[in-house]
């Protein structure tokens, strides 16, 4: 069973501060991490002992780095679609590339990706990829399991505190919930071996996938950024007089 996990490198939230007054983001440290929910998706894939996980990432050096981390954690294969750092893809571009990657690999039974992305709203990639492939998209996935005879099963949340084991009956794309599992630590020897192996991460160019940059240019452009107003803390009212006090406060506001 071949599981493809899509990884995105995002800025480490500990490496920047948001100053609302100045309407600015200050980068304190240039550090990138695997998007946290993608790390949970990788773990969900690695937990299927009968499966083989291929990690894929699109982008510049940071994408290559997250793929080496994925290999060290246990992914059997990693594919880096190398793009210039300065050419960010939007969800449409990423979908087009991933569709070609799946065609390139040949047989993929399941695509896992994090249900939320930290740095840009690319949570559309999962559903759009499923639509492009004409595969079902499963949301709220907590776990992946190998099912006897039925291929891969997904544990999805049906309602608060209730989970259901579902099978797509064929290949599917699934959005894995952040913090639904505890990502494993990579063994030290594997880190050293894989980082010293230049073939640990396979590289693919857009040309090899039959694509070129203009085809992938974003449909939208970013004109500027602004920040929502800061939320202020509420006030606790206690005692018998609380309803009257609340009414008074509401009337005055």
């Amino acid at each position, binding site marked *: 069973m071949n599981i493809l996990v899509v990884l995105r490198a995002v800025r480490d939230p500990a490496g920047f501060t948001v100053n609302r007054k100045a309407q600015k983001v200050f980068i304190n440290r240039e550090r990138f991490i695997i998007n946290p929910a993608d790390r949970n998706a990788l773990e969900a894939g690695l937990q299927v002992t009968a499966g083989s996980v291929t990690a894929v990432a699109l982008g510049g050096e940071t994408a290559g780095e997250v793929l080496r981390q994925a290999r060290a954690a246990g992914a059997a294969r990693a594919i880096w679609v190398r793009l210039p750092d300065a050419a960010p893809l939007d969800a449409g571009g990423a979908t087009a590339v991933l569709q070609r990657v799946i065609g390139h690999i040949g047989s993929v039974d399941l695509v896992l990706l994090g249900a939320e992305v930290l740095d840009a709203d690319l949570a559309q990639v999962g559903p759009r990829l499923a639509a492009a492939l004409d595969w079902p998209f499963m949301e709220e996935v907590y776990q992946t399991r190998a099912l006897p005879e039925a291929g891969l099963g997904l544990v999805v949340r049906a309602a608060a505190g209730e989970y259901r084991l579902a099978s797509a009956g064929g290949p599917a794309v699934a959005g894995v919930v952040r913090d639904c599992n505890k990502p494993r630590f990579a063994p030290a*020897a594997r880190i*050293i071996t894989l980082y010293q192996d230049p073939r640990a991460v396979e590289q693919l160019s857009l040309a090899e996938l039959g694509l070129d940059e203009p085809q992938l240019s974003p449909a939208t452009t970013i004109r500027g950024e602004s920040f929502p107003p800061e939320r202020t803390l509420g006030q606790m009212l206690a005692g018998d007089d609380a309803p009257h006090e609340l009414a008074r406060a509401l009337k005055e506001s």
Partner: protein
Amino acid sequence: MDFTLSPEHVALRQMIREFCEQELAPRAKEVDRTGQQDPAILRWMGELGMFGIPFAQEYGGAGAGEIGYCILMEELDKACPSTSTIIGAHIGIAAMSLYLDGSEELKHRYLPDLCAGRKIGAFGLTEPGAGSDAAGIQLRATLEGDSYFLDGQKMWITNGPIADLVMVLAVTDPALGARGGATCFVVETDWPGFSAGKPEKKMGLHGSPTSLLNFDEVRVPKENVIGQVGLGFVTFMKTLDIGRVSLGAATLGGASAALDTSLRWVKARSQFGRPIAQMQSIQFKLADMAAEIEALRSLVYRTAWLVDTGRPFVREAGMCKLLGSETASRCIDRALQIHGALGLSRDFTLEHGWRDARIAEIFEGTNEIQRIVIASELLQEIGVRIRP
């Protein structure tokens, strides 16, 4: 000159740091209070390769070299000094003596288990009558047939109560003494005649068990000699030389943790209507700590690089241990002052950090011994030899 870590070492640090922050730091107070690290945590660390970080992969190690090992010790000591001491004694001196001078047969027999943490090692040098004067050891090894019989005591042995293997120095030829008459052995602690004493009650490092070791005519086969008969003292001194580098790395961790804790506190704590970070008296302490830590970091990692590239490192190794232990004690003490009364609270990390740091000026060669080592290397360059 390139002072950057290799990508594999950066990734290794990241993994170890996450493990330490998530699994070790939250339990450090408990380890100090109960005097025991959870064996399940140690097993997990073994599975991740943390018990054999520097050694070659053919012996079951991670192949991360001395630099990788220093990274491990720095991160461990930041999170839990007791655990870092268990690992330091296990890798830095016990397994290291075997790795440096053991026969291929002996290394293949014991190192895979040591590297995976399935067996824990201890290093037996100090005796009731021999501390800084390591050459004064009395533990006797007598050859009878194809075995040696070991008789005597070792004292203050880190990991003593939990060790499965002890690398021990014993006198094989009393006429020659330490120089030419001492031999190094690997002893399995379940062999008849061996016993470990009760864990000592120490000021700090409560989770790192220390004890006396009793050898009552313990039969050790000849194959378990590390290196050559009569040259055990050389093996032990070589091991201690290299161990000082990683011990310096551990003290670097302790000192950095004190600075990190202080940086968080000075931002959060206000007095006279402003955060104490705004006070010059606090700023000076922070600056002194940062400068000393940076100097130590440069020294430790440069010395690790000397080791990994096969260059001479003995003088620098002594400096790592000397400068490191004193820097850590000073930095933790300053951090305690910055934290005021909170620094003394048993609910807070600095209190045990302060107690844990003190031993680094004593074990693995007191700082007085380090000064002698450094001076002896210095004077040798101008043709002066220090008499022992």
